[in-house]
């Protein structure tokens, strides 16, 4: 408490912080970035370990024998799928019933706010089919889910085949203590959303679906299977869910443990694990893996069908079979045994997975970085905002030179400080930039019809281009407005506005980083320097250029290129731009279809906050 009560020491500290403000900020920024890059360095990470006692050892005997038959079923499914050119509901119902499951279907329909050009869908109608294997040994209060999406084309038939094969095999075992639900969902995430909403009696996105006729207990865990070839070289684990939520780390541990036991190659982000962490290439491999996870998490979209389960407090992951040119192949029987082992372990659970971490990053499947290790990287960036705010505060609060004739002087100063013009000059830009943000959120969807009528563009293009237009128009708007109300902007005025904007940004980024670390960190990486250097007295043209480069939209553009680079699929600028446009439309769709929060966050909060700094730059 010495610091809080001793004025001399306080003054010394504050002097130090204000005098060395800029160097400290630079050091903090570099330290933050360095810390983040250091996270992928293996000696700094922790080895994964199983925390859940009920899943402690991998001592179960996997006996799943019928991989060949599963592949054959998959072919049959493919033939029926082709015949009805869609989900072969009747065949699926019949086959599941033949395997002794309680089978139900659910119809759903959804009209997208605008056509999805990536997946070529607008008015979506479909049917989910699911069969419940009732637990013979327990009171059926809990359930596990195994799902496989029915995708158009030749994809994923083997996954459905394996699902049916596992259903048949599981039916004959007696040790199940939880209901197991085998779900084949139509139209991937939309179908999954309909099914989950139906299962939990909620309707958050205004979709039409028929109520579920049959239900198991409360779902404890779920796996989604994606398999498009008869043999695979490796299995890939996908964890990133809606809004960057991750399942409990124990689920990843479980997958890793069984892959090790059965001898299946396993990857995360499509990257194998390497042992040469002390070499440059090994380190850059780990960085690449971690950065891929960060980018995917920051996007806030579900990267597999499991992504929507997480919202309902259900631990879920997607397991993807990858077939590359490697020699070593794994057949369907082995994958079946892998899944059998995992389900038997999950079947042993006494309570929901909660022992292990929920906040983590994975530079490889066997190592992870927990929240305590990665938060300081963000903290170092966020503290810059607070330091700048402190600096401004000190400048604003420096006591005026006191003269002998007390009262009059004070009154003058007080008058200069007097709150009403100050409040207005802060409030006006705040309100206006938020209105611009609200326009960015509302207009693209509202105006698509009008745009399509008047311009030669498709609906999707109309939405994206309107968004970009509003975004750019916003740049022209706010810096002219405060003059309408308060005349000349004062020196005090921009300081107060900047103080408010800095604190606003700090709180905003802090909250974002808590919910979705990656998003918060990436935004902080670009917004913090912008926020730190802006004053009305820096060279206008250059700073305006830098500020635009550091704006959220450009961050997204860079992220798109960077992501392609990380995936080792670099694109030309034109392709990158098209990709950028489709990413924006996907982001908007994700919001309206599944309730992803990234688009509203950027439009309603981050962008207005950035506009405030733009406003300060053009303060007159």
């Amino acid at each position, binding site marked *: 408490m010495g610091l809080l009560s001793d004025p001399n020491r306080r003054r010394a500290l504050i002097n130090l912080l204000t005098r060395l403000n800029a160097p400290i900020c630079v050091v903090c920024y570099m330290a933050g970035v360095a810390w983040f890059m250091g996270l992928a360095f293996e000696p700094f990470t922790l080895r994964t370990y199983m925390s859940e006692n009920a899943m402690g050892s991998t001592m179960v005997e996997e006996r799943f024998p019928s991989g060949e038959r599963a592949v054959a079923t998959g072919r049959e499914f493919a033939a029926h799928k082709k015949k009805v050119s869609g989900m072969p509901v009747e065949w699926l119902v019949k086959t599941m019933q033949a395997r002794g499951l309680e089978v139900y279907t659910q119809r759903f329909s959804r009209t997208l706010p605008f056509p999805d050009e990536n997946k070529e869908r607008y008015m979506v109608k479909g049917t989910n089919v699911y069969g419940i294997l009732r637990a013979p040994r327990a009171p059926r209060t809990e359930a596990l889910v195994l799902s496989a999406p029915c995708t158009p084309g030749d994809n994923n038939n083997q996954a459905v085949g394996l699902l049916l094969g596992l259903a048949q095999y599981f039916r004959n075992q007696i040790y199940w203590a939880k209901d197991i639900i085998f779900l084949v969902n139509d139209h991937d995430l939309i179908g999954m959303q309909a099914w989950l909403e139906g299962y939990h009696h909620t309707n958050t996105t205004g979709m039409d679906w028929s109520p579920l006729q049959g239900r198991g207990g409360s779902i404890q865990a779920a796996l989604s299977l994606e398999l498009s070839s008869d043999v695979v070289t490796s299995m890939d684990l996908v964890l990133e869910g809606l809004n960057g939520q991750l399942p409990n780390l124990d689920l990843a541990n479980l997958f890793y443990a069984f892959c090790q036991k059965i001898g299946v190659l396993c990857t995360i982000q499509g990257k194998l694990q390497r042992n040469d962490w002390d070499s440059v290439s090994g380190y850059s491999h780990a960085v690449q893996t971690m950065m891929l996870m960060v980018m995917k998490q920051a996007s806030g979209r579900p990267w597999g069908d499991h992504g929507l389960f997480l919202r309902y407090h259900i631990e879920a992951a997607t397991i993807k079979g990858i077939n590359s040119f490697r020699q070593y192949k794994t057949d369907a029987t082995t994958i079946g045994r892998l899944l059998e082992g995992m389900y038997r372990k999950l079947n042993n659970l006494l309570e929901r997975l909660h022992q292990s971490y929920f906040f983590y990053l994975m530079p490889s499947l066997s190592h992870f970085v927990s929240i305590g290790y990665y938060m300081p990287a963000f903290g170092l960036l966020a503290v810059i905002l607070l330091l700048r705010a402190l600096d401004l505060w000190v400048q604003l609060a420096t006591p005026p030179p006191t003269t002998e004739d007390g*009262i009059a002087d004070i009154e003058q100063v007080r008058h200069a400080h007097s709150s009403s013009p100050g409040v207005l000059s802060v409030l006006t830009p705040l309100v206006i930039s938020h209105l611009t943000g609200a326009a960015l959120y509302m207009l693209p969807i509202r105006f698509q019809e009008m745009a399509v009528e008047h311009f030669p563009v498709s609906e999707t293009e109309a939405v994206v281009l309107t968004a970009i237009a509003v975004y750019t128009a916003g740049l022209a708007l706010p810096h002219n407005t405060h003059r309408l109300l308060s005349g000349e902007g004062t020196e005090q005025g921009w300081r107060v506005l900047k103080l408010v904007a800095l*604190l606003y940004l700090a*709180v905003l980024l802090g909250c974002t980083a808590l919910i979705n670390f990656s998003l918060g960190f990436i935004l902080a990486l670009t917004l913090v320097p912008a926020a730190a250097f802006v004053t009305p007295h820096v060279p206008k043209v250059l700073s305006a250029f830098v500020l635009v480069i550091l704006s959220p939209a450009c961050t997204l553009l860079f992220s798109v290129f960077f992501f392609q680079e990380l995936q080792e699929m670099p694109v030309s600028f034109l392709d990158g731009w098209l990709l950028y446009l489709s990413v924006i439309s996907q982001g908007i769709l994700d919001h309206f279809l599944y309730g992803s929060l990234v688009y509203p966050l950027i439009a309603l909060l981050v962008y207005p906050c950035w506009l405030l700094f733009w406003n300060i730059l053009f303060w007159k």
Partner: protein
Amino acid sequence: MSGLPGFLIDDRLHFPSCPSQGGQRFLVEMAAPLTLLLVLAVTIRAALFRSSLAELIAERVEVVSPITAWKRVVEGLALLDLGVSPYSGDVFHETPLIIYLFHFVVDYAEITFMLDIKTTLTFTDLSLMLFQFRKQKFALEADRYPLDCLELIRSPKEMYYIPLKVAMFYLLNPFTILSCVAKSTCGLNNAVVALFIFSTIKGNTLLSAIFLCLATYQSIYPLTLCAPAMLYLMQRQYIPVNFRRASFWWFIAQYLFMYLGSLFVLICLSFFLLGSWDYMPSVYGFILSVPDLTPNIGLFWYFFAEMFEHFRLFFLCVFQINVFFYTIPLSVKLKEHPVFLIFMQLAVISIFKSYPTVGDIALYMAFLPVWSHLYRFLRNTFLVSCVLLACSTLFPVLWHLWIYAGSANSNFYYAITLLFNVAQILLVSDYFYAFLRREHHLTYGLYLKRKDGSEATLVLK
């Protein structure tokens, strides 16, 4: 003394002048901004009442406590209509008078909750009085202060806007708006407390005792406001605080008689309304023994959820005594300044009470503009406002992570609760320190010199 503006001397001549004179002048000149403010405040509230947010806000644990939740009052009303005791079923914990009040006005519930407005008006009037009173006091004592302290003393021009600022602080405080939109009965409690302070400052002993008793009846804790009320009334009636004087004891006896008498009447009235003593354990037992450990912004829930059962009673006593205990040292230290004492007490209650909500915080925060003359001595404004701001936004975020996403746990939420309360304590102690320091400067001069002539600084250790 020639530097003294003329009006101060004027006031001195007219002392004791009628406060309402200034009040009328104020009301005439401030009518426009005040009306504007009221219209704005009512618009915000009405808009929020109609929006879908209202339902969400009414569920927030930060805004409603098990005592003040409107949902529970509705449940109690339903039970009452069915002819069952509203206290059966352990849902309803408000006092009987409240439920009978809502029994008659339930159709106008929204309007009732606009009571905020009434509270504010009271506050405005109140701060107006305060400023009159302080002016007079200043005029009386001006001779005694050293010359260089003049800049410490608020010129009436600054004080002029204080009532408006108080109104603004209360009406536009997001905390007040939230608790009003959630229809938390906390608004009623605040109104009663405001009326109590108002009548005390007006010098009406009887009304003061009655409103204090109403406030106590509602939530026990305002009991500690007894001390500042008596101190203030005695100051007003020129009764010295001296244990040897008969007049002192006589006044205390009078006040306590009125207070306890009306408390007795209220309790009996509640008994006759309900026909049973059910409400005693259900209201006061509920407040004192803290059986409901739903998370809130207070300190109790986590602590008592973690505790071994056999320590519970002991720590319950410790925690509850904590709320009341500060009355004694604070009254001793601030016996010359009962209004500041009221502020301190309100803050202490809202920090340490068993089921605090943001509405309670809004009550004492409304007083902050009254102490605007302390700003120059405040040391942690930046820190405190940053922490309060950050915590207020982190509450819903961590709640979401804990309850909905399931990825964080109660420790995260409680950490923020702790931080929030530490910030509040820091705020209050900062004001306390600033007040004492100002008093010190008023007596010893603003620019302190050491014995050797160098400039000295005050250090709080």
